[in-house]
């Protein structure tokens, strides 16, 4: 490792340092504010170091990491998401009983895991990142252990993630046994369509890796855990789960599939397309009449991950851009939606407000919150003015460019179904309130976060050109 390597790795190192610092400080002095501040500082520091790292990108640091523009882009995305979640969590926990300091520790660790994933170029770093992400998440999901639902969610997530990880690792082992390589470039070099056709163990290995990652992405049929865990986890953590965890894994899947010859195999494409179609349809159908908002968003996230399989199946430079933009938009929309639920629920002493009925008339009681939530839902539905629209447009372009008509058909049907349940929520919020509620506690930090997210949402929807340029710049050279 040279100094340049350290420079390139500096955002990651900053995160690591933040984990350690928070760990120490919590051990010495328990204070919610201090911990939050430290976490935020750590995240911001990591962000500030990104330009520095960008100077030396693209660069392969050890055998494990590849620091390129794409990785840095997603690092920023992940860290920003973590930042938003931290701020939201602060408002959510502040005033609750119990100790919440470790939450930030786990959050930072999890973020680090995701950050490792987006830059990994080796099965070892993949495993390391994934486990760092997951193990911290088990604890995060079940953090309010005195409540039954988070605990149940934690146990479920833990068991199922364990099983999925086992599949993933077994897949990696099979691939290794066949190819003898662990780093992606070497694997990619040997992993061709003909190799896949000729070696069933190799094909099975790839299938298992995809399955393991698909679990994290909650693609059908690996999606069953999603609603339960989303519902049980505290709202800010659900936001984290829905964005950071999925985004990082999606990037990994993209690198693994598009970087290698696996994408050239008809079997792989069929499998991807099939999973994508089924995910879009099943996810949206499951959400259709759902009355629990967190479950609803869980199902919607299944569908959205299904949408992302359109560019993944399409492949090519354009798909990489699409994934980047879509994920950025998806991060904003999902964080915003869960953020609204978080703020509406806070302080969440007596459980969260995630039943649809609790939102009746929200428009007239808390117009700002309802407005933000509406904007986020409309964005998820792909309506114009928001980033969701441009994202959907990207999907269409990627799909049409590759002539994936079946996938696009499912996308259209899925979107139409999606409209129904997103708009149903909006309608309920615009209904007549049942009773007058006590004036809510205003949570400044949370509201600032929501405001920032809304501005970003609209800005990316109305003038996406700068981000598109950035993405285009960063996604150069991702593919070999």
């Amino acid at each position, binding site marked *: 490792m040279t100094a340049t390597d350290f420079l390139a790795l500096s955002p990651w190192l900053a995160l690591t340092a933040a984990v350690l610092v928070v760990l120490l400080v919590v051990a010495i002095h328990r204070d919610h504010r201090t911990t939050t501040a430290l976490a935020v500082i750590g995240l911001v520091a990591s962000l500030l170091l990104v330009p520095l790292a960008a100077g030396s990108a693209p660069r392969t640091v050890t055998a494990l990491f590849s620091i390129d523009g794409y990785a840095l882009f997603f690092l920023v995305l992940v860290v920003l998401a973590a930042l938003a979640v931290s701020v939201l969590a602060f408002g959510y926990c502040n005033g609750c009983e119990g100790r919440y300091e470790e939450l930030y520790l786990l959050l930072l660790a999890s973020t680090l895991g995701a950050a490792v994933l987006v830059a990994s170029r080796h*099965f*070892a770093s993949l*495993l*390391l990142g994934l*486990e760092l992400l*997951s*193990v911290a998440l*088990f*604890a995060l999901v*079940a953090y309010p*252990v*005195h409540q*039954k*639902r988070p*605990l*149940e*969610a*934690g*146990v*479920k997530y*833990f*068991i199922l993630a*364990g*099983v999925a*990880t*086992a*599949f993933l*690792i*077994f897949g*990696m*082992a*099979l691939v*290794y*046994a*066949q190819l*003898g390589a*662990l780093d992606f470039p070497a694997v990619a070099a040997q992993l061709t369509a003909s190799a896949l056709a000729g070696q069933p*163990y190799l094909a099975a290995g790839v299938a298992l890796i995809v399955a393991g990652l698909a679990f994290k992405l909650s693609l059908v049929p690996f999606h069953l855990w999603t*609603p*339960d865990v989303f*519902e*049980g986890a505290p709202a800010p953590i659900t936001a984290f789960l829905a964005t950071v965890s999925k985004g990082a894994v999606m990037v990994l899947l993209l690198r693994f599939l598009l970087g290698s010859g696996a994408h050239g195999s008809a079997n792989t494409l069929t499998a991807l397309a099939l999973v994508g179609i089924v995910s879009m349809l099943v996810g949206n159908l499951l959400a259709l009449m*759902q009355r*629990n908002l967190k*479950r609803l968003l869980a199902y919607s996230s299944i569908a959205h991950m299904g949408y992302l399989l359109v560019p993944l199946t399409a492949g090519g430079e354009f798909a990489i851009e699409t994934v980047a933009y879509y994920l950025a938009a998806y991060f904003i929309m999902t964080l915003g939606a869960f953020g609204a639920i978080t703020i509406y629920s806070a302080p969440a002493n007596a459980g969260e407000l995630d039943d649809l009925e609790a939102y009746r008339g929200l428009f007239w009681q808390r117009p700002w919150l309802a407005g933000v939530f509406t904007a986020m839902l409309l964005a998820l539905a792909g309506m114009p003015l928001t980033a969701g629209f441009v994202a959907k447009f990207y999907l269409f372009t990627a799909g049409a460019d590759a002539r994936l008509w079946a996938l696009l058909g499912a996308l259209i049907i899925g979107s139409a179904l999606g409209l129904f349940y997103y708009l149903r929520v909006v309608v309920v919020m615009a209904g007549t309130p049942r009773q007058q509620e006590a004036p809510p506690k205003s949570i400044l930090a949370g509201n600032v976060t929501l405001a920032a997210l809304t501005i970003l949402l609209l800005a990316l929807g109305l003038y996406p050109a700068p981000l598109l340029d950035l993405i285009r710049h960063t996604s150069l050279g991702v593919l070999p």
Partner: protein
Amino acid sequence: MAEIPLTHGLLLAVILFALGLLTVLARRNVVFILMGIEIMLNAAGLAFVLGGARWGAPDGQVLFILILAVAAAEVSVGLALVLQLHHRFGSVDVDAARQMRG
């Protein structure tokens, strides 16, 4: 010592993996499920070792050790959750925890 064909080893790993999976699917006790997961992870580890042996590289063994460490971390968090589960639900039966569905 006669070379054992890779396929035989991998088959063993697959069987081991299937056993672990069946444990997860069949047992209701969380602790057993945890053990099932461990078996599955170890089956993967075995496959790595086999791969390392085939290619004559240390990577496989290194990965196996990594898996062990990871599994340990996972299990530690898992056991903590099991404790809490027992505490809240008064049982280590996973099916007791199914409030959320639909």
